[in-house]
């Protein structure tokens, strides 16, 4: 089942890295910008004030220079007024001295224009007038300077000035008044610059701009502005107050400062667009933002890289875990980070190997269980078969015995001819009886037979006894029987009945397949810790092709079958089972038509038989046992 991932580790690392990188940066940036902004705000105000003071000084110098020319002090005790020549000379010099004085008149103390000079017109065409009703006359006559309001003509702003003319004694003897063109003040403010677009302008007492770098602004009235009204009334603006940051005459947001020219009732204003004044701050801000964003991206990228470096091995581990979990135990996780992740990968690989082995063991166990079950079933079938054969054989033997007895009784009473017929019938019974005997023997010494009877057996005696019981047959077939046994032959441990049966089968085979007049020789010797029983005949021998099969059940060699004698094919099968069941060995060598020699080797001394069933068909003993009957002590394994 695929696990649902709510948020990838890489995403988390990237975000955390960015936040960790951003936090200090933001704080530092904020602090730095606050400090720089506040400091720069002060600097802007200071620069504006310095510029205003400079320009106000220039304006004052211009005004003072002009009014100074109007202030005339006669060096001697003059009569009431200056004479014509002196007056005309004075006015001529006045206009020569200051080219911005456009008109000047010397007025007597009654207000009559005595002399006039003008740059604007031919004064001879203008009738002199009495100006006693004009304010400049009143002021100057009283001994004070007069500065008239700024007046706006098509040729530019102008103002009327007047000053008293005094004699050596300080007495006012006349009034000198005239008009001064204020155009130079426009030049003064035009030359004032703050940054790229900071500017200065002059306003008169009504708040009207009369000198500005932007000529189009001249005549604009700001009299509705409380800020301007305060200024022309004598209140300076430092440029640092909140109200000093407003929309200027240019329509942009400006930082403004104002300096009053109190004696004239004017004000000078400096306006510097905030954007320009703070362009440095904006640049710094932009750089800080760019740097911050760049840093964030770098940090995020590095976080992503680190996350990726971690995630790739984790991905490999994850895929590997899924593969191994899915049963692909041969899958190998390839993590080469050299750290704990690599160790984890190797551990998971080992886990895969272990799981693989465990799986193999499970499979083997299943196979073993299946095999055991199969073996058990086979054994059960074999047991049933053996039991069937045994039961059947025993069941057959009784009626066969009765039949044999009855046959003998009948033969006694029968005629000659009947006896011949009965003789054949009796032979058949004998063969049937032999078959039954073999079957019974097979039931006792069948497959897996392991002898559990460990009694001392004198094999020589057994052979001799068997041979003795076949003496009649030897005679009938004129066979020579020889038994060669040493006197100190040790006994073997085993079942007398079983070993006797084996010897009987070997001897009977030799008798059966040895032609009349043949020879059958038996010998028993000790070979080490074994007793070696040899039985040699001069019989028909065993065909080479059949030799590999002669110990199989119901097998009969071709030449044996061709003799048409009766045989079950179980004799040698029983021999091998009995000898093997006693821990011995049986072999033979044979040449067809020449004879056969069987070798039976049985252990002496301790005989250890492990597992299997005994001759009685009962279950094998739970534990092996040992018996020693000879002089040589050896454990057969």
């Amino acid at each position, binding site marked *: 089942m695929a696990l649902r991932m709510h948020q990838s580790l890489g995403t988390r690392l990237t975000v955390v890295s960015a936040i960790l990188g951003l936090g200090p940066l933001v704080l530092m940036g904020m602090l730095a910008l606050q400090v720089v902004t506040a400091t720069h705000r002060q600097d802007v105000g200071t620069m504006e004030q310095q510029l205003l003071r400079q320009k106000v000084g220039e304006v004052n110098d211009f005004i003072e220079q002009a009014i100074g020319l109007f202030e005339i002090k006669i060096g001697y005790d003059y009569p009431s007024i200056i004479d014509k020549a002196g007056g005309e000379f004075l006015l001529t010099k006045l206009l020569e001295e200051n080219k911005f004085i456009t008109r000047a008149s010397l007025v007597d103390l009654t207000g009559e224009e005595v002399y006039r000079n003008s740059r604007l017109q031919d004064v001879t065409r*203008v009738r002199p007038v009495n*100006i006693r009703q004009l304010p400049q006359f009143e002021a100057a006559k009283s001994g004070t300077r007069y500065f008239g309001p700024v007046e706006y003509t098509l040729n530019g702003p102008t103002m009327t000035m007047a000053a008293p003319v005094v004699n050596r004694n300080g007495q006012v003897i006349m009034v000198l008044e005239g008009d001064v063109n204020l155009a130079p003040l426009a030049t003064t403010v035009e030359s004032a610059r703050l940054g790229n677009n900071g500017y200065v302008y002059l306003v008169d007492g*009504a708040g009207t701009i009369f000198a500005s770098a932007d000529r189009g602004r001249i005549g604009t009235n700001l009299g509705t502005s409380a800020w301007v009204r305060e200024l022309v009334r004598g209140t300076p603006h430092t440029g640092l107050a909140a109200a000093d940051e407003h929309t200027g005459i240019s329509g942009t947001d400006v930082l403004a400062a104002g300096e009053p020219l109190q004696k004239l009732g004017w004000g000078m204003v400096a306006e510097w667009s905030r954007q320009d004044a703070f362009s440095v701050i904006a640049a710094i801000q932009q750089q800080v933002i760019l740097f911050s964003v760049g840093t964030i991206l770098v940090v995020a990228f590095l976080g992503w890289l680190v996350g990726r470096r971690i995630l790739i091995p984790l991905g490999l581990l994850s895929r590997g875990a899924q593969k191994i979990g899915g049963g692909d135990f041969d899958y190998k996780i390839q993590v080469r980070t050299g750290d704990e992740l690599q160790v984890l990968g190797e551990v998971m690989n080992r886990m895969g190997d272990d799981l693989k082995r465990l799986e193999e063991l499970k499979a083997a166990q299943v196979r073993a269980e299946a095999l055991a079950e199969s073996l058990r079933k086979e054994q059960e079938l074999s047991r049933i078969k053996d039991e069937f054969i045994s039961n059947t054989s025993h069941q057959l033997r009784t009626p066969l015995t009765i039949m044999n007895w009855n046959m003998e009784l009948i033969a006694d009473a029968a005629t000659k001819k009947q006896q011949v017929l009965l003789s054949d019938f009796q032979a058949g019974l004998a063969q049937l009886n032999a078959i039954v005997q073999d079957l019974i023997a097979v039931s006792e010494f069948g497959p897996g037979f392991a002898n559990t009877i460990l009694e001392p057996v004198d094999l020589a005696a057994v052979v001799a006894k068997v041979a003795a019981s076949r003496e009649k047959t030897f005679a009938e077939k004129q066979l020579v029987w020889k038994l060669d046994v040493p006197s100190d032959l040790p006994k073997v441990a085993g079942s007398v009945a079983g070993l006797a049966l084996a010897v009987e089968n070997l001897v009977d085979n030799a008798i059966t397949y040895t032609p009349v007049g043949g020879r059958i020789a038996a010998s028993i010797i000790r070979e080490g810790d074994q007793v070696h029983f040899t039985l040699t005949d001069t019989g028909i021998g065993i065909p080479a092709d059949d030799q590999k099969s002669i110990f199989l059940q119901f097998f009969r060699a071709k030449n044996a079958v061709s003799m048409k004698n009766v045989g079950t094919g179980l004799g040698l099968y029983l021999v091998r089972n009995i000898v093997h069941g006693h821990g011995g060995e049986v072999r033979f060598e044979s040449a067809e038509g020449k004879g056969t020699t069987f070798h039976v080797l049985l252990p002496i001394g301790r005989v250890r038989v492990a597992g299997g069933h005994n001759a009685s068909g009962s279950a094998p003993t739970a534990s092996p046992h040992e018996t020693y009957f000879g002089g040589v002590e050896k454990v057969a394994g």
Partner: protein
Amino acid sequence: MLKKRAILITALVTIVVAAVAVFLYAARRPAAVPSPHAIVPPSIHYARDPSHPVTAIHLAAVYFVPKDIAASADASWRDTFNHALAELVRFYEFELHGAVAITYTVYPTPIIGEANHHVYDGGDTNRGNPNALAAVSAELGRRLFTPGGDHYDASFVRSVPGTDEALAILYEGVGSIATLRLAAGEQQAPNPLYQHSLIELDGVEWPVFLVSRFFLTTEGYRDYGETVFAHEFAHLFGLDDRFDADGNPTSDDIMGSGRFLPLVNTYLSLEDKRELGLTY
């Protein structure tokens, strides 16, 4: 995968936007203070009479020549007249800050008077020749403004709604004088002829100002002849002279001593402007 990437991008974008927002906040500017320089568009009214605003004035300009001196009419009167009118317009648009639009139309031909010059100049020519103002106004009212008059031109004397009409007369005679418009409740003008010079057409009063052609072409008035022409026009607003009966000024502006300065060097004083409703 796309979802993870979207989450990643969203997170990064959020962080970057937050950073930018924080920096902008850190570098924030104080709340903008409204401009203290609220510039109120100037407007004027007739002098001392706020109930009668003036936004546009149209001058019907006529060169009037008494019959007996028709032969000596100035051949270049049109150029002279146009120049004086143009300078007048320039002066007042500047002084009144564009509060009033002044236009003019010059009648294409001189109008020859039905009488000789002594008839028109029969009064006190030292006071601007109010007799000429009244006589010429009456005659023009009849001949120029009245249908059937020998110079009647409906398009020339038409009244445009929203525009105050006036008659400017370049007079081939002496004097300079104008209808003095009185505010409601004010006393009669110094000379009743001032008021009689009003021409009424379809219920619309046409004030009149008259200036001798000599002010504009004679060498002796070269420096201030057009100033006198403009001075007389100011009376149409109701502005009075700022000099006394002896001609001594009470002001240096165009209504006072400034009327003898070249027009480009004179001005309308703040006192006069205030009468018109201006503050500067």
